[in-house]
């Protein structure tokens, strides 16, 4: 249960990991390391050739993972093992095309059968009622994004077709670390929370323990992606780097200085 895992976590930080970097076996170890380090849930990113919502770091991660030979079947054959190796729920994040390619329902069922509990699709069709119902039938959370530009009417629609948690996008822009985050985020999270009995997690741009601390003062959880993947890509020991980077984000006094 994703919502429950976030609510019961003392400090709900959700790491994002691009699958297949440097290879799928390493991804498995990174996920275990993040689970051990106390991740509330873990997002596994399916690399895509044309990631239009991603900044330079996650573009590079996608590109390198594909170059290293990532395949969806390779991932599916390992997910079962990964989900039984950690207590944190696993979530898949993917652009819509790789999910649609083998049939949306078929792919989601295969993911569910490996223990994946939720899915995030950054370029979901603007009318997502069909996929919402499909996910409900299959028994999987469809985590929806709410942007700073989202109108109130649209926010109601999105939240009513969302489960697991609501992903509050903190900034106008693509993924990637920012030195400061807009103060409106607090208001945005409160507005979303008033609409549904779901945890609200904030993501995009978060890269320091201080930002995590700030966000958690009003949000139920925080998602960290680019910052983590930047460290994973630059370290000779990606597994250790993932664990250390994540632990540093949980500490209030952090040595993680924004590059």
């Amino acid at each position, binding site marked *: 249960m994703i919502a429950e895992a976030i609510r019961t976590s003392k400090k709900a930080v959700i790491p994002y990991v691009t699958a297949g970097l440097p290879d799928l076996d390493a991804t498995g170890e990174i996920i275990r390391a993040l689970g051990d380090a106390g991740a509330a849930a873990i997002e596994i990113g399916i690399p*895509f*050739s*044309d*990631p*239009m*919502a*991603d*900044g330079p770091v996650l*573009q590079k991660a996608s*590109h390198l993972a*594909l170059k290293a030979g990532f*395949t*969806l079947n390779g991932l599916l054959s390992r997910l079962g093992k990964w989900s039984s190796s950690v207590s944190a729920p696993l979530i898949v994040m993917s*652009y*819509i*095309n*790789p*999910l*649609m*390619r*083998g049939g949306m329902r078929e792919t989601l069922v295969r993911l569910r059968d490996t223990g994946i509990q939720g899915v995030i699709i*950054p*370029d*979901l*069709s*603007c*009318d997502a009622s069909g996929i919402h119902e499909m996910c409900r039938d299959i028994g999987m959370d469809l985590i*929806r*994004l*709410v*942007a*700073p*530009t*989202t*109108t109130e009417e*649209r926010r109601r629609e*999105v939240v009513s077709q969302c489960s697991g948690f609501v992903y509050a*996008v903190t900034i*106008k*822009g*693509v993924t990637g670390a920012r030195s400061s985050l807009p103060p409106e985020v607090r208001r945005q999270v409160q507005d979303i929370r008033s609409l549904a009995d779901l945890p609200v997690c904030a993501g995009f741009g978060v890269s320091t323990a201080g930002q995590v601390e700030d966000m958690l003062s009003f949000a139920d959880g925080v998602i960290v992606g680019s910052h983590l993947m930047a460290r994973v890509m630059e370290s000779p020991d990606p597994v250790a780097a993932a664990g250390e980077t994540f632990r540093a984000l949980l500490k209030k006094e952090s040595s993680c200085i924004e590059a």
Partner: protein
Amino acid sequence: MKGYFGEFGGRYVPETLLPALQELEDEFSAAWEDRGFRDEFAGCLRDYVGRPSPLTHARRLSEHLGIEVWLKREDLNHTGSHKINNAIGQILLARRMGKERIIAETGAGQHGVATATACALFGLSCAVYMGARDIERQHMNVERMRLLGAEVVAVPTGTATLKDATSEAIRDWVTNVDTTYYLLGSAVGPHPYPTLVREFQRIIGEEARGQILEKTGTLPRAVIACVGGGSNAIGIFSGFMNDPVELIGVEAYGDANGRHGASIHFGSPGVLHGALSYLLQDRDGQVLDTHSVAAGLDYPGVGPEHSFLSATRRARYELVDDRHALDAFRLLNRLEGIAPALESAHAIGFLGQYAPDHEGATVLVNLSGRGDKDLHTVLQEGL
């Protein structure tokens, strides 16, 4: 469903962009109903672009092929291609919406030049995203854009061509959505772009229909245009949609190594850049590398309305490879004194396939742009 052509089209974008797309849709609908806007657009096309563009009977080419070939001369527009029609239309829309910063993507550079030109005309700031590989092979257009005051932003990621330039333009738009107007150059992208671009290019088909009726007294047997994203093709097709006329789009069949840009022929339904359409992709849904000697056709997707026209068989889509496009480029120079853009040369190149079975038929070809920009490429291939 709204925003779809049959099953194709839609709006598959980051949530941040949805309000901007809705605003664009509303604003376009209002503008298109507004007599003042239509008059302003028509005035710009007449007095600045130089419309109507002529319809030329290609006498020697017709003799050579044994069919009657008529060329719609979009190459004679200001800036040298059909792209200016859409650029002017969207700039007027951007002004109406109060946007002061314009961004665009470009492949061959024709849309970039058209956008930079329209921005210069109205004093708006302009950034054009262009694949690093395209910057190399379309150098003259890069210099033109800079002269016009635009910033040309090189995109080195992915295949460093039009698809990556488009992704990067979308990323800019997500980041600067409050102040920026995204002037998309082809009939692709999320709703309402495919419809909006078609409407701004419809003038090609409307003029051509009147001109060919006036000159020949009949409708042509076929209307032929090259298809990358498909804006020149949808523009000319839209004038003949309800006529008993064959609509033929010509896709880039690329090189001898099996690399091409023929999305309708070899693709399958998929989502790229915000719309569901035929897409060149592998079995995992990763978008494939493409190739065409014509940078403007070097794109793995296609406008959703073309997918619809193909699926419903209202139009058919044929193939012409690099070599035949280059041959057509040379042929049109020698026989008609016209240097076509390598994109448009694909449409000319198709006539060699069409003519043998259609002796005496009248065909209308959209000569969507001129080929000065491609001289460098053609010289490399050998005259």
